[in-house]
């Protein structure tokens, strides 16, 4: 997405659920295992981030829960779907890029799901006057905008309005929220069409 580059590989469904947890698992379903790695060259400054970083762990957990509910995991009991993400370049909308990359990778792997899980970011620029209604929502933020503005990441299932992921780490007034959310969901619909186009084109190339 812009200068944010994320590469995602999917392995699975493969045998075994996690480190041999005998019987205590939640029913006969596949387990989704997400691993995120930040490359040292991804940011402006070269920085090596460990995997146990809190922010990394939180992003991974978000992805795990959202994909666990999206994928048809009951088809593959007692197995693990491993999603491995490598962040190559960061320039804003990181979580959204990860979600979109993982969706495409899962489709490429042939893991069944009901619809695409797409995500994008939205922010609300500071109101030019004291009039609350004039806040301009912005779509798809880059790195500089993310640092300055309060923003949220929203993920929806397909082109519907069903929000599956919503992450916001900054503070805003609650009446701005609706505008941002609406813009975000619209953006997700566009994203879904984009991803679908890519998948179909790739599929056509394969057939030919």
């Amino acid at each position, binding site marked *: 997405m812009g200068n944010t580059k994320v590469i995602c590989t999917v392995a699975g469904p493969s045998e075994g659920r996690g480190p041999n947890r005998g019987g205590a698992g939640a029913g006969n379903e596949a387990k989704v295992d997400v691993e995120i790695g930040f490359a040292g*060259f991804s*940011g402006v400054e070269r920085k090596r981030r460990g995997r146990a970083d809190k922010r990394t762990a939180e992003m991974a957990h978000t992805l795990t829960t959202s994909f666990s509910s999206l994928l048809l995991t009951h088809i593959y009991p007692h197995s693990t779907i491993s999603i491995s993400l490598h962040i190559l370049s960061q320039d804003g909308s990181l979580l959204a890029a990860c979600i979109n990359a993982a969706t495409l990778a899962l489709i490429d792997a042939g893991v069944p799901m009901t619809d695409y899980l797409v995500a994008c970011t939205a922010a609300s620029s500071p109101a030019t006057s004291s009039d609350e209604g004039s806040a301009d929502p912005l779509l798809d933020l880059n790195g500089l905008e993310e640092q300055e503005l309060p923003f949220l990441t929203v993920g929806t299932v397909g082109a519907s309005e069903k929000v599956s992921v919503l992450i916001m780490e900054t503070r805003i007034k609650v009446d701005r929220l609706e505008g941002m959310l609406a813009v975000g969901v619209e953006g997700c619909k566009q994203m879904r069409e984009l991803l679908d186009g890519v998948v179909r084109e790739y599929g056509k190339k394969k057939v030919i």
Partner: protein
Amino acid sequence: MAPIQTAQVLLSPAELSYLHSSLSLSPPIRPDGRTPTQFRLLVAESDILPSANGSARVCFADGTEAIVGVKAEVEKSQWRPTAGEQRRLSVAAGDIVMDDDEGESGDASKTKGMGQDSWVEMSIEIPGFRDDDALPIFLSAMLTEALLASGELKDRLYINRRFHWKLYIDILLLSPPLSYPLPLLSLTTHLALLSARLPALKSEQDEDPLFDDDWAASISLFPRSNPNNPSRTHIKKPPVTLLVIAVGQNIIFDPSKEELAVAEAVLAVSCAASHTSSANPVRLLSIRTIDPPSRLTPPGIPNSMNSATGGSAPVSSTDAMAQREALNLSGVWTPRRGGIKRGLVGRVLKMVVEKGGVAEEVLEALEKVEVDG
């Protein structure tokens, strides 16, 4: 000797024996029909990362993929007593005109020896391996050694007496290592370094470094050869490491994982373009022997020793040893014992370094990637 910890290629002794015999023929018959010096198809892209000074991605035909990013940061130099007070010129300052032969040799002599090994840092990430496992550490050591061997790279990182560039090379192997990933990582590093650029220096001498904001004025870490000046024979390029195996009398390049499993000797040869117009266009930087994975393969049991097929199993250990000694002749696979003959090493080096040899081909091919991409 560097150990190999790749996912073991699961081949039965019969398959190993078959591979070994077909590779020992003259000329060798490789499983995919390549000639001994033919490399597999690969996909290479360079300059793919907008936020890194240099980057490259290479995918081999067997599905292994690697991405390398090069980042440079200015760091304060530790004060070293300098011998003599010559005027220090540096590449970044643009004092040296790149396409002038005289200037080239002048540059080399004035910044020679100013670089330090610690200015280049490499990190390798391989899925499934921790950072302190043997494989990433050995690979990192071999690649760093090749990079620093010629001394040119670290000399380029010199800015002035108080500051220098610290080069961070981050290697990401995207797929689990099927065969020994050394040549893949080395090729990707080579491409990333070729595409790496440093901002142009605007400050003078020993002041705090100030750089040109215009990225279009940036200077390549490894200056490209100037097509207008054909007399330039010495082109500085980063090194490349090739994996070579020997089976019987044959020397084979770019082994696939099955060929590695039956290799009798495995060598990693690092070479770079030579910077003097000597007879050989390629300089040898380092050779490393690698423990051949054939030692870890299961040995075959001939029918004569297998009680299930009518033979008799050896009763005592001396009996077993005596029978095993005779196995080699009967074509039953046994793990390779013994080392590498010196003559063999000599032949390998000659094949790599000679004019029109393998290394020259590889370096030329890699240079083309940069131009087109």
